[in-house]
């Protein structure tokens, strides 16, 4: 094969080779439909069309055809420039320069009446035009090649390889043109022609590898990053807390996409973790704030939230597969996060159980103490009466029996209270809510008091209807009144008033009040103040906890307010209508 044959063969292959490049870019565009892919396919469709047209028309094309072919060829560097500008915005001066020189190159060819044959003498104007095209092509190509080469720095292997391969392709094609431009006399310089055609043909696979790399290339390039991917995957599968999951994922994501930052958000749009951004900026990003011109975000929706990766515009195009890898990791993250959530819930439940066990232990200790005392008294007196019936004087016998009865009543009361507390705990108390006139209830309870009803004053303006269970309302009132009479000092005032949407019941005495340090434990079971009058008086220690439990079961609440002097207990019930007289 002669040199000329080789040149001819290379020339003949160009329409096919560049046709394939164009096809690959079009296929990619059809698949992803993004702007950069569109520009790439336009770029190579124009170039391939010009080459195909040049081949089809053969050695003697008409002037117009020649002009169209040249215009198409010289529009290539400008389209390349636009493609590069899709990833990083050039300065305005560069924009104007690139646009102007390309406009002159494309339109200028149509000013010529004749286009000289290769090797034929040319006019000065045409020589100048050729020089202009060389400057335009080589200049713009060099700029774009620099963008891609430099932009690949610090990026994951696939992205870097793709960007740098593309830069190499651009440079090879520009070199071919430069070579052809500097040594135009092809007739005597077949070696130059060989070089030009070799460079042009060699550039094509580089374009394909850069713009639409086949799977085999990707797999090979990715191998460098695979160990780390595997490590991250195993960390995610290994689970851990939310922080550990985010700590494994985000730095990797940032690295694998050559990104600036990554944020993991939950379904409610709150930041779970952020890498490369402070929490406020991360939240702003999740809230949809503007990223600025240089950045592009890749959003991955997860069942339990969102993963947002902030990078530059190279990432989504050159790291398309990496983005998919990240989406896959995102799904894995989701599983890991749900596991972390479940583990945290389990931890909370176990702590709750431990606390609850401790409460039950205290409860059992207090209950057993309070039950033992009356039992001991009953047993003691009963044993004495049984064993020494004859010796015990008649009046003593009666006294002892009265003591037994009193303690048995007390015991019954403790048992009843314990039962109520246990029902309240298990949620077994179902209030039968009716519209109840609390004034009537309070007056009935006061009238039924064994002792001290003369010391109680009831203040109620008109009918105060509240939604309440009648038995519960009586028990609440009785407990509070007995407490006030047992631990406080008369006079005791019961006030009923509307505080919409509630009716409030206040029981106030004029005693020493509740010691401040004891107030927080006042409504706990078996809570008894160490100081003051409470320790001497016989109560079950469950009264206030029952008051609060029943009030809450009915949709209300109970609390303590200090009064000067004395103590004031407040219970509120949901109001059930108008007050009137």
């Amino acid at each position: 094969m002669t040199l000329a044959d080789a040149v001819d063969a290379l020339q003949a292959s160009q329409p096919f080779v560049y046709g394939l490049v164009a096809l690959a870019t079009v296929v990619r565009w059809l698949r992803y439909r993004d702007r950069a892919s569109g520009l790439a396919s336009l770029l190579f469709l124009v170039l391939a069309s010009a080459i195909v047209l040049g081949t089809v028309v053969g050695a003697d094309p008409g002037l117009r055809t020649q002009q169209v072919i040249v215009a198409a060829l010289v529009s290539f560097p400008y389209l390349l420039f636009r493609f590069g500008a899709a990833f990083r915005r050039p300065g305005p001066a560069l924009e104007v320069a690139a646009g102007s020189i390309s406009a002159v190159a494309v339109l200028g060819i149509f000013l010529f009446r004749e286009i000289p044959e290769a090797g034929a003498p040319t006019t000065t104007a045409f020589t100048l035009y050729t020089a202009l095209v060389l400057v335009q092509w080589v200049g713009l190509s060099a700029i774009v090649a620099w963008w891609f080469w430099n932009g690949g720095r610090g990026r994951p292997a696939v992205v870097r390889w793709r960007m740098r391969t593309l830069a190499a392709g651009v440079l090879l094609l520009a070199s071919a043109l430069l070579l052809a431009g500097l040594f135009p006399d092809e007739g005597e310089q077949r070696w130059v022609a060989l070089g030009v055609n070799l460079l042009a043909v060699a550039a094509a696979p580089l374009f394909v590898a850069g713009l639409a790399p086949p799977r085999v290339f990707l797999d090979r390039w990715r191998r460098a990053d695979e160990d780390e991917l595997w490590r991250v995957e195993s960390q995610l599968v290994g689970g851990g807390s939310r922080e550990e999951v985010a700590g494994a994922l985000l730095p990797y994501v940032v690295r694998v996409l050559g990104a600036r930052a990554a944020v993991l958000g939950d379904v409610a749009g709150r930041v779970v973790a952020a890498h490369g951004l402070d929490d406020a900026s991360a939240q702003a990003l999740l809230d949809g704030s503007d990223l600025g011109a240089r950045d592009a975000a890749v959003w991955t929706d997860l069942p339990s939230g969102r993963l947002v990766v902030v990078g530059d515009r190279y990432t989504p195009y050159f790291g398309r597969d990496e983005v998919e890898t990240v989406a896959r990791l995102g799904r894995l993250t989701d599983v890991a996060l749900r596991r972390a959530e479940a583990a945290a819930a389990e931890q909370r439940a176990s702590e709750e159980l431990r606390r609850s066990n401790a409460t039950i232990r205290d409860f059992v200790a207090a209950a057993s103490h309070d039950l033992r005392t009356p039992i001991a008294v009953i047993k003691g007196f009963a044993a004495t009466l049984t064993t020494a019936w004859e010796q015990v004087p008649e009046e003593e016998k009666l006294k002892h029996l009265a003591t037994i009865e009193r303690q048995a009543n007390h015991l019954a009361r403790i048992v009843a209270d314990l039962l109520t507390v246990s029902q309240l705990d298990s949620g077994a108390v179902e209030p039968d809510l009716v519209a109840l006139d609390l004034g009537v209830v309070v007056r009935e309870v006061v009238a039924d008091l064994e002792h001290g009803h003369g010391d109680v004053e009831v203040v109620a303006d008109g009918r105060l209807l509240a939604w309440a269970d009648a038995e519960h309302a009586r028990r609440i009132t009785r407990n509070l009144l007995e407490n006030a009479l047992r631990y406080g000092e008369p006079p005791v005032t019961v006030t009923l008033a509307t505080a919409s949407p509630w009716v409030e019941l206040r029981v106030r005495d004029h005693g020493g009040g509740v010691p401040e340090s004891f107030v927080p434990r006042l409504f706990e079971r078996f809570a008894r103040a160490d100081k003051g009058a409470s320790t001497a008086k016989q109560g079950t220690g469950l009264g206030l906890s029952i008051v609060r439990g029943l009030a809450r079961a009915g949709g209300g609440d109970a609390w303590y307010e200090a009064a000067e002097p004395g103590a004031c207990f407040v219970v509120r019930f949901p109001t059930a209508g108008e007050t009137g007289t």
Partner: protein
Amino acid sequence: MTTKVLVIVEDEADMRQLIKLLLTADPRLEVVGEATTAAEAVEQARTHDPGLIVLDHQIEGPVMGLEAAPALKEAAPDAKILLFSAFDLRREARLEPAIDAYLSKDQTQRLLPVALELLGLQPAA
């Protein structure tokens, strides 16, 4: 016949009556003082110099029975102190040198024998 004077420290009136009843079943024993708080108890102990103090743990006032024991011992050094409580305070009683014995309120029937033993008296025939 020796008469040993006793002080009962108990805030529950019925329980106080019971203790008194059980102990005075033995004619050699006499209850001379009753108290519901630690302060009252120390006062009674100092006044009567009793041979035995029956001390409940959960009593009225800021000082609990167990904590009051050393002051009681100081007020009446010859007195034996019997901690008589519904709380299980066996360990605490053993660790407190001022306490001579502990009896649970579950075992009221053993109160008199324990008291007699502490006082070095034989059970009545």
